[in-house]
């Protein structure tokens, strides 16, 4: 049979191509263009080659040291909130009811923080933590703690972390809850028969069955926390000093504050690259975890 070659498909793809070009490729290429040049306003540009990238990766330069410091802050922040939110989310999911009207109450309550816009969350905590009019700050100071997130590095970090835990633990909990709900009742019955302790039920049944949703939860929380901007910007504005200045905040400062478009473009490209690499790492880990399961499924 003759194969009919038909090029019409290209026309069908064209709209998508145009949308993606205008929404992603052209802006990205503009950033690449900026990252190679310097500007002093008036739309005058000077060629700088890979100069900004060299400076960015050189810790002794101003740009490089700022980038490195904020990168460490980001990684530290992500590590801390993952270390808190994942175990806490699991505990919350485990203690949620499995049936009855209380399920709906729990689900709605958990979903509430997720529905609040980022900047509103920031504003809530900014006021909540103020020593003069905020409930949290006022109570802490009257209990004898010298709590002030505007002047104390540790307090600022604690506030930002507690805020993120408050905002996002629900997501981990809801994902884990979905994982737990999918475990057939027979597993728990078998564990009872086998005389398993509560801890053994958790390690032998619940944790392995939650593995996949947990991976997704960790991925989502890492990505979101690594890109964090609005909440700390509203609460601390990156301070005191630079102590809570994350990469995204640094980026906005350089691009819009100093109007160093070249530096900012180079920084955002590297930032983007880090996120893509981490995404790829997670994706690889997750698909490998899936491959292990494949033969068992095929055998059925």
């Amino acid at each position, binding site marked *: 049979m003759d194969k009919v070659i038909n090029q019409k498909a290209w026309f069908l793809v064209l709209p998508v191509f145009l949308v993606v070009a205008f929404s992603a490729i052209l802006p990205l290429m503009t950033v690449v263009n900026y990252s190679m040049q310097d500007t002093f306003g008036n739309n005058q540009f000077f060629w700088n080659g890979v100069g900004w990238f060299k400076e960015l990766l050189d810790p002794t330069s101003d740009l490089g040291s700022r980038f490195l410091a904020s990168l460490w802050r980001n990684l530290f922040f992500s590590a801390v909130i993952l270390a808190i939110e994942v175990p806490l989310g699991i505990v919350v999911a485990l203690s949620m009811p499995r049936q009855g009207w209380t399920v709906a109450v729990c689900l709605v309550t958990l979903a509430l923080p997720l529905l609040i816009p980022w900047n509103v969350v920031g504003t809530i905590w900014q006021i909540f933590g103020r020593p003069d009019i905020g409930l949290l700050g006022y109570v802490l100071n009257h209990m004898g703690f010298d709590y002030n997130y505007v002047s104390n590095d540790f307090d600022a970090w604690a506030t930002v972390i507690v805020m993120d835990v408050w905002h996002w633990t629900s997501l981990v909990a809801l994902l884990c809850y979905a994982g737990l709900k999918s475990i057939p009742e027979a597993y728990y019955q078998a564990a009872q028969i*086998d005389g398993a302790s509560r801890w053994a039920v958790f390690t032998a049944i619940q944790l392995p069955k939650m593995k996949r949703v947990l991976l997704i939860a960790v991925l989502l929380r890492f990505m979101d926390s690594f890109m964090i901007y609005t909440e700390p910007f509203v609460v601390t504005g990156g301070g005191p000093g630079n102590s809570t200045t994350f990469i995204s905040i640094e980026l906005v400062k350089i691009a819009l504050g100093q109007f160093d478009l070249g530096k900012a473009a180079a920084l955002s490209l590297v930032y983007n690259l880090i996120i893509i690499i981490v995404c790829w790492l997670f994706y690889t880990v997750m698909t490998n975890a899936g491959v292990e399961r494949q033969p068992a499924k095929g055998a059925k």
Partner: protein
Amino acid sequence: MARIDLVDLAHSYGGNDAPEESFALKPVTMTWRRGGAYALLGPSGCGKTTLLNLISGIVTPSRGKILFDDIDVTTQTTQKRNIAQVFQFPVIYDTMTVGQNLAFPLKNRRMARAEIDKRVAEIANLLDLTPYLSRKAQRLTADAKQKISLGRGLVRSDVAAVLFDEPLTVIDPELKWQLRSKLKALHRDLDLTMIYVTHDQTEALTFADTVVVMHDGRVVQSGTPAELFDKPAHTFVGYFIGSPGMNIVPAQVKGREARIDGHTIALNRNYDRLPAGAKIEVGVRPEFVEIASPAAGLLTANIERIDDLGRVRFARVRVGDVKFAAKVPNGFSVPGHQAGLVFDPSRVHVYADSVLVEGTA
């Protein structure tokens, strides 16, 4: 190993106040012998699994008591009761190897390491799992997984009873046969009380020495396979066991005679004292009705079709509005559309409101 007594045991998922007709398990009193091989047989939804879960303690009964060797365990947890149960679908612990899976029930009970290894090796050997002991259980086939579940049920030597809840549902027919024979052999070797739930009569009759038939939340009969076949205590047992099932026909019974469709057939016993107002039926297995050439004195039937089952042929016939299955004697060529039915009087039973009536001699 223990003797298990059920005393007025009943269960309702709708709570104790629900009308008794809606109970998943209607009150039952019975005894399970130590070391017996029992099958709990009945169609889906008849309460078999409920009864099993009551014995294992997964479900707490609404009413009545459960005794293990005269000790009341009704309110005891599953762990305390020391019972093993194997479920319909394989339950394996994904992260563990086959060996660790088998050792799990023993480890939870803090048995000595050497003892565990010995027991696991023994059970793995009985179930042909030895080559897989160090493999991850997660990657095995459904058959192997169910063998692991069976193994976990059998690995404890001191259990009061091992309960099986349709454990071979997910297994290929050929392996099913093997595994069932294996279970039967294990029952002899390990001398355990076993209760096997199934809706498959072949499975029940080949596995058990006592078959307990359930219907609509009630235990309708408990006996050896031969007893169930020869003398069904309930019309349900009659047509549920046997293939084709028992012929159950409305009839008027008086003394030693039953009238079906205006024709009289002889009975072996005297049924003078039948309960008044009850629905009277006559039951006879197809094996004990033969077709013959139409003749005076025989019940005349219209032949609809002949089922050839290989070693035996059954004629599907109709008497008036009533369908009948009857054996076709070897070498008998079926005469046209009509035939006479020859009953074996000693095999004809009388049922009042579906329950067997014992006649007097």
